[in-house]
């Protein structure tokens, strides 16, 4: 009797395991949100009902449609200059997406090169590069970014450079660790046996084997970068107005948060959703790529 019951339980758990990717909430929810972000960013001019930067003083501080006094003309209300919040949130996706993509491209490249080099060459280079990495990890990124904004003046590229300046360190750390493990691997010794040059070993034998953790970390970092950009814009060191950026919109609304809460609220929700999506997707990819889980 017991045996039969066990069998049915096994069968059930097996079926659960093979649930299609599309139905796994950890995968599908973040993917839908991030896809929406990309669509908003690309088709912003088509999707946004209003121009995000044009003032309209007669429409100042209108509440969202569901609140008292709101109308469907401005779904999410308007800000102190009468600009449509929904349009600005949609356009804000452009900034968030382009900043995060650029920063991740730059930091992941630098971090991977530093990490592989440091881990494979070892010795003094390794000590030196890892101390630089330690300093980068210890230094408050916002502080550096503020400093950069003061020196270079706030602009899109200042934000990108400021966040990248220290952002490569986590990649360098991770990739170095992986490289240390891989350089001991027999297939790397085998490559040296046939006379492969160190540069080629790093590029051809080690790099493809560190791509998995790299993808996971990069996905995880999407949220962090968007958050840092928002924080910089909030502090006034980010994307200069009137360009719509979520962090700056949160900042715009902070003086009237008790009366016109929607000015800060909706961009804040957008930041939260995208950051969480990045983290959940990163987790999901990590679980999928982990060879120990895959072999089960």
């Amino acid at each position, binding site marked *: 009797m017991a045996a039969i019951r066990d069998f049915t339980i096994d069968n059930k758990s097996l079926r659960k395991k093979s649930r299609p990717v599309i139905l796994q909430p950890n995968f599908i929810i973040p993917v839908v949100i991030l896809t929406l972000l990309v669509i908003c960013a690309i088709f912003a001019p088509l999707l946004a009902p209003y121009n995000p930067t044009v003032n309209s003083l007669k429409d100042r501080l209108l509440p969202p449609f569901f609140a008292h006094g709101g109308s469907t003309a401005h779904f999410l209300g308007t800000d102190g200059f009468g600009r449509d919040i929904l349009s600005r949130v949609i356009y804000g996706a452009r900034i968030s997406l382009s900043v995060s993509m650029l920063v991740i491209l730059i930091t992941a490249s630098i971090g991977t090169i530093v990490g592989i080099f440091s881990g494979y060459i070892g*010795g003094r280079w390794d000590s030196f590069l890892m101390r630089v990495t330690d300093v980068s990890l210890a230094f408050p990124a916002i502080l550096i970014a503020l400093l950069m904004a003061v020196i270079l003046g706030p602009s899109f590229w200042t934000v990108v450079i400021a966040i990248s300046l220290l952002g490569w360190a986590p990649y360098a750390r991770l990739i170095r660790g992986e490289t240390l493990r891989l350089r001991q*691997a*027999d*297939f790397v*010794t*085998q*490559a*040296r*046996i*046939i*006379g*492969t*040059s160190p540069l080629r070993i790093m590029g*051809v*034998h080690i790099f*493809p*084997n560190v791509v998995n953790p790299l993808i996971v970390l990069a996905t995880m970092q999407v949220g962090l970068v968007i958050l840092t950009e928002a924080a910089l814009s909030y502090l006034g060191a980010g994307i200069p107005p009137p360009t719509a950026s979520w962090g700056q919109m949160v900042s715009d609304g902070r003086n009237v948060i008790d009366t016109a809460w929607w000015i800060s609220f909706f961009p804040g929700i957008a930041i939260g959703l995208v950051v969480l999506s990045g983290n959940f997707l990163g987790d999901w990819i990590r679980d999928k790529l982990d060879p120990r889980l895959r072999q089960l």
Partner: protein
Amino acid sequence: MSELLLKVEDLQTAFFTRQGVIKAVDGVSFHVRDGETVGIVGESGCGKTVTGLSILRLLPEPAGRIIGGKIIFQGVNLVELSKNHMRAYRGKMISMILQDPMTSLNPVFPIGDQIAESVRLHQGLPDDMIQPEVISALRLLKIPAPEMRLNDYPFQLSGGMRQRVVGAIAMSCHPRLLIADEPTTALDATIQAQYIALFKDIQQKTNVGIIFITHDFGVVAKMCHRVCVMYAGKIVETAPTSVIFKAPRHPYTVALINSVPRLDRKDERLYSIEGQPPSMANLPPGCRFCPRCSAAQDICRKQQPPEVKISDDHSVSCWRIS
């Protein structure tokens, strides 16, 4: 007699660690001729692998270094070569097979690409000539249907097949010397026998010299022309295979041969050597085997035994002989 291929003279390799200097290879000398298989036999940790890696100068730097001796390959002292010069020898003139076929292939590339890497590196062939070379390397290792295998990933192959692929990489540029570091240890017995037969066949076809590192005297008997028995970083006895089985002189050699299981004798128990090899950081002053030797005398504990030539190709380092 065939040409002298490799002559190792008084090779000394040390590891500089926090615990002090550890001489893993301490004055090893031997030679290999074209088309000859020389076995290096001994327990784990006696310096066999380090000897092999020293010849290719692939010691884990900066801790491991060759601190003395010569490695003369076709008249060139490899110890004195520059790094780039040495790299040109690896794979092309001297190649090596590692012990574990499960880890010595890169998991993310098809095997065809991994063999092609070596071919591309050393043979300077145009792109369309590389694939035929790869296929002929696979064919040399008797891998069935090589054309179908090129795009297989390592995880799709069995252990024995992978070790053949590793062999194909090693042989792809027709090296003169092959260092095989326990290539059969990770394989099961039937595959082991096939692999040995395969290498004998390859040796006949290519006249490659082989250094066969193993701890298994059974494998030595099938594969090697001559044997060097290593103990704690030194070669204690060198002789042709037939001689070493008929008339082993060093007590360690005798003990090793006695510990091979045999079907033709009905002993109750399999012989095993008492004790452990000495710690390389803390060697006894005299003969390194004497703490485990049943025939040890006073002099064995005090002084290292000299190497004595019993005949032209048989030499032993033991006080009992001299």
